[in-house]
């Protein structure tokens, strides 16, 4: 049975237009080199965390002299998923969550979320990322882009809690609970292996 099935799969790829492996390798190395340089910058900045553009943040195009590729503030503040995690956020079945508070969240709201995540047995690990440290990492990461750094200060970054769930099946329930709490602005989930940074973001 498997033999026949295997033949069917082979037939299905018979239309392969082909591609020189050397060209594929070169293209991958060029793209991979860019990822690598970016990540090295992140590591040098202290496992920098880029922070999501919270609610009301204006998306402004930087002056053109910033050079290609054009960078928007929102894009620069977007969280970079850790390399071993899913590239794009997932809506369900996440192993790791990043819970961003609104920039207007009060200390009382922050403390309530903190108590909730520490007291929840479905959450295996918690790391708090303050807006100050998020901003510092942003400044280090974009040190070569002074217009971008000047355009944004720490108050525009949100605090966030980075969580690792005990089981991905509990993602929806945990998200629903935290999303309902006052002060929580956005929750981003990723699928990550156990050796990824907690929360799935750099």
């Amino acid at each position, binding site marked *: 049975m*498997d033999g026949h099935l295997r033949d069917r*799969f082979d037939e*299905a790829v018979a*239309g392969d237009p082909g591609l020189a492996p050397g060209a594929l390798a070169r293209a*991958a190395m060029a793209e991979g080199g860019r990822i690598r340089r970016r990540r090295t910058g992140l590591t040098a900045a202290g496992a920098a965390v880029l922070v999501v553009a919270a609610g009301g943040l204006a998306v402004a195009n930087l002056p053109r002299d910033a050079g290609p590729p054009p960078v928007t503030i929102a894009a620069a503040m977007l969280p970079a998923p850790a*390399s071993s995690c899913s*590239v794009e956020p997932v*809506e369900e079945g996440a192993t790791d969550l990043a819970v961003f508070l609104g920039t207007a969240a009060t200390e009382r709201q922050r403390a309530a979320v903190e108590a909730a995540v520490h007291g929840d047995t479905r959450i295996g690990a918690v790391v708090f990322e303050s807006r100050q440290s998020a901003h510092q990492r942003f400044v280090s990461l974009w040190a070569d882009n002074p217009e971008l750094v000047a355009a944004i200060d720490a108050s525009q970054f949100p605090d966030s809690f980075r969580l690792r769930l005990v089981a991905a099946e509990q993602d929806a329930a945990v998200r629903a609970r935290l999303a309902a709490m006052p002060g929580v602005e956005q929750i981003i989930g990723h*699928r990550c*292996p156990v050796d990824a940074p907690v929360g799935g973001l750099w």
Partner: protein
Amino acid sequence: MTDTSTAAPAAWSRARRRAKEARDEEFTAFVEAAGTRLRRSAYLMCRDWHLAQDLTQHTLAKMYAAWDRVRTKASVEAYSRRVLMNVVFDQQSRRSGSEIVLADLPDRAGGEPAGAPELRVTLVDALARLDVRDRAVLVLRHAEDHSVETVASILGLSVSAVKMRNARALERLRTLLGDEFRQLCG
């Protein structure tokens, strides 16, 4: 941060260049060995050769970016499938509306005669109608001939979950593809 690269002695720079050359050579050898199979699996997952090439390139780029760590893994091939499937799942969730294109394909019940050849549902079309993780199980298990255990570890699923998905997906293929496939699958 001080930029040490400008002050680096020439010897250090040469050693670094040699290390990069060795890395590139090893990586290129891996792509030559695995690239075609990877691209074909990407095609079976997405039904589009151009997209398959992009997904494969992106997969390989991620591996190259971490090559010093990746190369030490017990099975770089299996690891490459895990990265590919993650890239595919991400692409899928980003374009989750795209499957609607196939919504008007009829489910062919057992006794129905096959339609005209151009109306026949191909294997790749049928695969596209499956849950993306079920599709991944079929591609890894049957197109690539990996063991159930390997498929489970690639996809981060339990062995029983892989078996369950495999059985469910094969049953769905039988429904979609009709008698011809039924005979093949027994």
